[in-house]
């Protein structure tokens, strides 16, 4: 059925009840289940205590869950309309942290809001996806074939990436680049253009190396050869591999991870939480966890495929790629496959800022699902 009458879209003005009914509760349940694994791990990380991490994480998740549902229920056309605006706010905050940012963990990343520390770069991961989706929402294949058409989008990407690099936060800037790359790929940018960009980036590596901070150089060096420096930068990865490897097939049992509990494992409640999970639950537990995560990604794909408008598809795909990158970078890092980059494991790692943006991301994903059949013009807001 092709309905050309844009003002008569049956779903354009759904009631709140209808929208609640449209929410994929199975996805909400899956998200909650994964988050519960996280609570259990934080309980274990504190040697069998709800304090200091698990309780706070549960409360944050509860707040995040509400926020997620609110985001999901807001009309997607409103999100489309405010995409650039939200991107602008995130960009502005990035500049603010650059100027007067709070120094923590060797990098300027946070704005202290009092009740939590806001990481604008995390916010940017969501708003950049929204802005790019907005930009390509009305673009045809001819448009995306034109380099002049791509240039504004490239500026939208490169500007925040540069700011995040300056912080310096290599992990997040790479994630922003890869998510953007995925969106470019999906909207049909030709392969040779990617090849061109990647080629020139490779050529620029020596220049980038020159401008890198020593600690970043060390991280790359350490990645290439962690055993060389067992008590220095390689220590984290060595200890992580020892803890993870010693878990074996079935693990040491909940609360029994000796390496984690004796503090050999650094940052076990944040970046290295997967290591603890694998130590205590073994390979079986880790595979179950990965399967649940894969299912989350499948949900993201299905939502994107079933969406009937480009904006929703791109937002859903972008956020799914985002989630995937979080997970992949984190787990590959703790297993020594890639250098140590400070990327948390969404829904599991303890932390405010990323948990918040991840929940907003899921909210948007649900929103796309709820509003999958909404009709939108290429300009996006005419029928709103």
């Amino acid at each position: 059925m092709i309905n050309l009458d844009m003002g008569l879209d049956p779903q354009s003005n759904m009631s709140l009840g209808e929208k609640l009914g449209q929410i994929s509760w199975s996805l909400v349940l899956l998200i909650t289940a994964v988050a519960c694994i996280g609570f259990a791990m934080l309980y274990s990380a504190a040697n069998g205590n709800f304090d200091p991490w698990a309780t706070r994480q549960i409360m944050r998740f509860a707040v995040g869950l509400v926020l997620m549902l609110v985001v999901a229920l807001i009309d997607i056309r409103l999100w489309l309309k405010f995409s650039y605006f939200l991107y602008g706010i995130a960009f502005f905050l990035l500049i603010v942290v650059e100027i007067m940012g709070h120094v923590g963990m060797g990098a300027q990343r946070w704005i202290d809001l009092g009740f939590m520390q806001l990481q604008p770069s995390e916010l940017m991961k969501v708003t950049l996806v929204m802005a790019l989706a907005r930009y390509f929402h009305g673009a045809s294949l001819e448009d995306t074939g034109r380099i002049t058409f791509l240039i504004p989008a490239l500026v939208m990407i490169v500007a925040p990436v540069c700011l995040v690099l300056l912080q310096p936060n290599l992990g997040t800037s790479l994630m922003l680049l890869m998510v953007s790359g995925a969106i470019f790929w999906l909207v049909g940018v030709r392969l040779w253009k990617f090849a061109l960009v990647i080629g020139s980036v490779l050529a620029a590596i020596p220049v980038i190396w020159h401008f890198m901070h020593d600690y970043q150089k060390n991280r790359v060096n350490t990645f290439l050869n962690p055993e060389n420096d067992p008590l220095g930068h390689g220590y984290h990865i060595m200890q992580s591999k020892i803890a993870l490897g010693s878990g074996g097939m079935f693990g040491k049992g909940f609360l029994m991870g000796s390496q984690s509990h004796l503090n050999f494992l650094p940052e076990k409640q944040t970046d290295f939480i997967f290591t603890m999970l694998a130590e205590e639950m073994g390979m079986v537990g880790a595979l179950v966890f990965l399967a649940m995560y894969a299912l989350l990604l499948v949900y993201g794909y299905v939502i994107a495929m079933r969406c009937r408008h480009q904006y929703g598809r791109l937002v859903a795909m972008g956020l799914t790629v985002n989630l995937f990158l979080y997970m992949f970078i984190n787990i590959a890092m703790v297993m020594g496959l890639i250098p140590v980059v400070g990327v948390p494991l969404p829904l599991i790692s303890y932390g405010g800022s990323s948990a918040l943006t991840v929940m907003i991301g899921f909210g948007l994903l649900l929103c796309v699902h709820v509003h999958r059949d909404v009709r939108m013009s290429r300009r996006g807001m005419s029928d709103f």
Partner: protein
Amino acid sequence: MFNAIDRDAERQRVMNRRTLVLGGLKAGALSALVARLYYLQILEGDHYTTLAEDNRISLRLLAPSRGIIVDRSGVPLAVNEQNFRAVLVSERTDDVDETLDKVVKLLPLTDADRRRILRDVDRLRSFAPVTLRENLTWDQVSAIEVNLPDLPGVSIEVGQVRSYPFGEQAAHILGYVGVVSEQELQNARDPLLSLPGFRIGKSGIERKHDLALRGTAGTSQLEVNAVGRVVRELARNDGQPGHQVTLTIDAKLQYYAQQRLAEHESAAAVVLDVQTGGILALASHPSFDPNQFAMGIPQDLYDSLIKNEASPLTNKVVAGHYAPGSTFKPMTALAGLEAGVDPTHRVFCPGHYDFGGHTFHCYKKGGHGSVDMHDAIRMSCDVYFYDLARRIGVDRIADMARRFGLGDRTDLDLPGEKTGIIPDTKWKRRTYKENWYDGETLSVAIGQGYVTATPIQLAVMCARLASGGKAVKPHLTKAVEQEYTEQTAWPDIGVKPEFIQRVLAGMAGVTSAGGTAYAARITQPGMEMGGKSGTAQVKRITMAERNAGLLKAERPWKDRDNALFIAFAPVQAPRYACAIIVEHGVGGSSVAAPIARDLLLEIQLMEAARAQQADAGATAPSAPTQVTAAPAMPGEGTPR
């Protein structure tokens, strides 16, 4: 519009295709994660499990308690005492400075102590105890304990410190313990040596029997976390404490000997059992307090010990080289007898002996007149021995002296023993590349010239004489744990018993009427001693001095003659032998002999009292018998 829809459909197809590619990439990446998981947890799982255990378990050494050293009847000579020390755990106090200020009111801490403490606080982990002060007195311990609530982070720990109840009185026998030096650490394989604060024997018996006394390390398997904090103990093996070492020393006699020597500036004495060779007393004065070494001796005190010209740190009994003087004459006499010299042959002593253009003096200016061998030993006539030596030659004398243990180490179980010198023609050629002059033989005959011996060698010589020619060897160790090592059957040294009896008779004459040491005789019946005095020059007397009649006592202390005496008792059936030297004491018979007398009388009286006690014990076991036979012995108890 339809055009637009077509283009939308085309865009959708491209996107679907590319979504599939993207999904494939993600599936591939996920597979890589799973593969890595499999590699780490399954393929390399055992390897990482081992590493994890290594990480987790820390093996700590536990120092065993050092074996104690006791005298022949079980009186402790070296023990371990509890050592209380105040420690501070810096993480348990908010302000280290403030806590230290409070501690200073209870414990004297110097500025240097304070600097060391603050440096340790910075250097060590915050949970590691930093020692504030060691060797606290009871008063200090209780002062700290009472005030603990006001002293956050401070606590009292108990350790062990070596303690020598007899202090200076047995220092040269026992030696002392000290911290392990870098060099010792490199050469040793015992892991105990690397324990901080571990002490090993540095001299004396402590060093000789260090391995037996040390014991074996215990281990404690501890579960530690990443910063080394102990979480709990998994297993414990206490190790073996060190063995007890029993000495042949008699603590009472030892104490008495050291006290007796203290009347002089610098002296040494040794008493041994003629049959076993077991040393009953071995004293060297001045001495030092080994307790101060065990606790870590202050530098100024150490410097003063080193600079003292009477060398308190040297055990003169084994490391002192002295010309034996006339105490050597029994060797010359024996060599003569063995060479066929008639002991009844008489020599006229006019007070000097002219040989090869030189005049050799007898110590007695007017001479002894006509003397035979017995008289010569009794009166210590030099001229008789000049004449005897000239007839038999130096090599015979040297051979006899060596058979009696001179010129070589006695293999006493104490480190640092010297060999002494017994010269002969070969020795001179070897050492000086010169021929022997007959005139030198005359000096050797009276124990001067090149001849040197240690007091222990002289005591052994005396014991070999007193035993009738048995090759007795001295020793200090009676038993290590339960393993008795004492030897009583000694090989014969191959000198005819009648020769030895003749010399012993001469030595008995020394303490008889007309003998040089008659004044220092033992009068108790059945306890009489025989001996030989010696007054050995340490500086050649010039003709001018001799003519001027310079009194010996007027010379500077350092230039005065050494006083020596060797003795055995009882004369009828010798049981004990001793050697005494009083450095620069001038008179062998007037200064050294009385010490020998007192020591030999003391040990005999003690033995008599012990035998009596044993008898009394056999008849009335409940009645405690007080030993009262020792007149010069101070009250019982710890003499520190």
